[in-house]
């Protein structure tokens, strides 16, 4: 009997079109746009000037405050602008634009294919290296990794959980790195174990990725303390709290962090980035992105430099299909439609999904028939139909009582609703307003 989480969850069609496509290297574009805010927390502060020459891997913006991350140049070239750019949602955000000249890397970065197994750094040095490399959660939430590895005083981590679930339909980037970079990931996991001082690490992988499970299992058996846990396929298993429940059986209390039950969760992509940062001195300047969609000619997985325009990635996959109605950054469940395909690939871009006219349109919302399907689908045990009604009437205090802040915005409620009601849209709005209300109260 495979493990999974207890309450809620849905089974969207998997559509993993690109799972057998090897990771290819996307050519370096002529120009990259590197936004200063690619993570949760304060945007980074630029430390370079217009006209400066930078090498790939060079630090160009430093973290502002504790919850923030360093930003490095992903290419070598001249800085042409430190200005606002138009992001995927069409809004203006600060960024550094670099015109590419050649491909010169910083000297201290190792770029060999050989896996280094010898972890020499101490616990503190590891966290320092991770912080310097600007690593953030690669699953999409982009929370600065060094913050997650420094638990608040009084809390002790007992288990490291590595998230290789990739429960979003269509996306296969994590799947491919688990197959092609398995050794590096295992070393990355050992580094993370050392950083938070735990003896046990579990890699959770959904059962639809048998090859990745076998590959990692064969390596894990040789490594002390690391094991692989196959999981029953169910969305949203990649949610931190769901994954902890599935693997350890522990429930994270409402409003608490995973560390409250002694768990630290990191994505497989983050483990790989940690390996590169600690063993090869390489900051986070490139990542694997899935480009997929039913009408896309060649769905695939590409290793892209951060800052590459998304349009370049679409070109590499055979161009934009004619029947495209939406381009989505991320997966179909939690991703966001974008209006500007020239916007860059970010640290948290796990995939680009192109939706055709057959799947694109949203259906007309009809009246709630009180079937309570959303209640049984909610993995956090909330009542989405009620939260939506409260949100439409702006009843924020009642929303707080109904634990709207526990919502992980997974979209299971909207997915399952037979009346096609935009449950998540309203809940997300209400959650944002409730959050603002709570913050104001503290002031």
């Amino acid at each position, binding site marked *: 009997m495979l493990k999974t989480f207890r309450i809620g969850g849905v089974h969207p069609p998997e559509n993993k079109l690109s799972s057998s496509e090897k990771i290819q290297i996307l050519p370096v574009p002529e120009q990259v746009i590197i936004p200063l805010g690619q993570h949760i927390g304060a945007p980074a502060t630029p430390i370079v000037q217009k006209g400066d020459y930078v090498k790939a891997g060079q630090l160009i913006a430093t973290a502002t405050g504790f919850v923030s991350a360093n930003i490095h140049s992903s290419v070598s070239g001249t800085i042409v602008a430190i200005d606002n750019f138009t992001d995927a*949602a069409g*809004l203006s955000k600060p960024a550094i634009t670099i015109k590419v000249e050649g491909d010169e890397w910083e000297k201290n970065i190792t770029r060999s294919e050989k896996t280094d197994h010898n972890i020499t750094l101490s616990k503190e040095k590891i966290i320092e290296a991770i912080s310097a490399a600007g690593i953030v959660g690669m699953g999409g939430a982009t929370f600065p990794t060094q913050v997650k590895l420094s638990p608040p005083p009084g809390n002790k981590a007992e288990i490291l959980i590595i998230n290789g679930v990739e429960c979003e339909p269509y996306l296969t980037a994590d799947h491919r790195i688990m197959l092609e970079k398995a050794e590096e990931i295992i070393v990355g996991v050992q580094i993370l174990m050392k950083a938070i001082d735990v003896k046990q690490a579990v890699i959770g992988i959904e059962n639809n990725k048998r090859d990745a499970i076998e590959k990692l299992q064969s390596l894990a058996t040789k490594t002390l303390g690391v094991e692989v846990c196959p999981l029953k396929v169910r969305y949203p298993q990649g949610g931190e709290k769901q994954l902890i429940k599935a693997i350890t059986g522990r429930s994270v209390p409402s409003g608490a962090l995973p560390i409250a039950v002694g768990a630290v969760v990191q994505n497989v992509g983050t483990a790989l980035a940690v390996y590169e940062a600690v063993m090869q001195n390489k900051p986070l300047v490139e990542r694997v992105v899935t480009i997929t969609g039913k009408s896309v000619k060649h769905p695939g997985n590409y290793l892209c430099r951060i800052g590459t325009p998304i349009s370049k990635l679409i070109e590499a996959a055979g161009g934009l299909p004619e029947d495209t109605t939406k381009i989505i950054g991320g997966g179909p469940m939690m991703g*966001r439609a974008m209006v500007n395909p020239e916007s860059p690939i970010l640290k948290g871009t796990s995939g680009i999904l192109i939706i055709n006219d057959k799947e694109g349109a949203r259906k007309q919302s009809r009246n709630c028939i009180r079937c309570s399907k959303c209640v049984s689908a909610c993995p956090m045990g909330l009542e989405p139909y009620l939260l939506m009604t409260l949100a439409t009437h702006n009843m924020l205090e009642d929303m707080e009582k109904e634990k709207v802040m526990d919502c992980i915005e997974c979209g299971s409620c909207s997915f399952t609703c037979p009346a096609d009601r*935009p449950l998540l*849209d*309203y809940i997300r*709005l209400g959650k*944002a307003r409730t959050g603002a209300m709570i913050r104001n109260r503290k002031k």
Partner: protein
Amino acid sequence: MNTILITIISLCAIGVASAVILYFVAQKFKVEEDPRIDIVEGLLPGANCGGCGFPGCRGLAEAAVKSETMEGVFCPVGGSEVMNKVAVALGREITAQAPKIAVVRCNGSCENRPRTSMYDGAHSCAIEHSLYIGDTACPFGCLGCGDCVEVCQFDALHINPSTGLPEVDESKCVACGACVKACPRNIIELRNKGPKDRRVFVSCVNKDKGAIARKACTAACIGCMKCAKECPFEAITVENNLAYIDYNKCRLCRKCVAVCPIGAIHEVNFPERKVTPEAPQASEE
């Protein structure tokens, strides 16, 4: 017969006894309330819209009775007329407050502002605003989902289907300000209704630089400063590439309307212009 008599008498006795008890209890636990509150409440429109900032008309009545100066106590629905009556009833003087009206400061109709994407999410401006720039290239302009229409309790706002923008029905708007709060992009403003309902305002809230703003919308203010230089009363300020007319300083001369190269400054309820522009009109204050 006897039974009926006894029943009637005993019931009457219980009734009288209860009445006496109730009388004394009522005297003992009497809530002292200023009788003027009821009088003032009677004078108010009774819409309970909350436009004054108090919880309903009774809330305003209580505040009016308590307040010495009547400062900050004003019923936008009833306007000066009602407030004068209230002041007379309370034996106080109030400063006259100019009647106001909601003004939609966006002229990004389908013609002026081409659609760049199609929004098919939940039909709510607040949600659309939180997700992205909106279905046009202007990050400041009206989204047209009608959050303001929904909150208006006086049926004074309607989306014009040909422009996709909300329009204020002057005869119905009471300036309660519900739409101002509902608009996620702060497009609607309460402005002085003006003498003879005449108003001049900048119908744009775009703070982008001129070129960017123009690209998104042909009716966008480009912050060229022409109006500010032209204004004889220093009523116009240009900040962040956007002109704003202070309605307290504006004397409705309409010189700015004539110089605006975009036509972003709108005049309302003025008689048609003659071919030669007329001399500045004196405002009737």
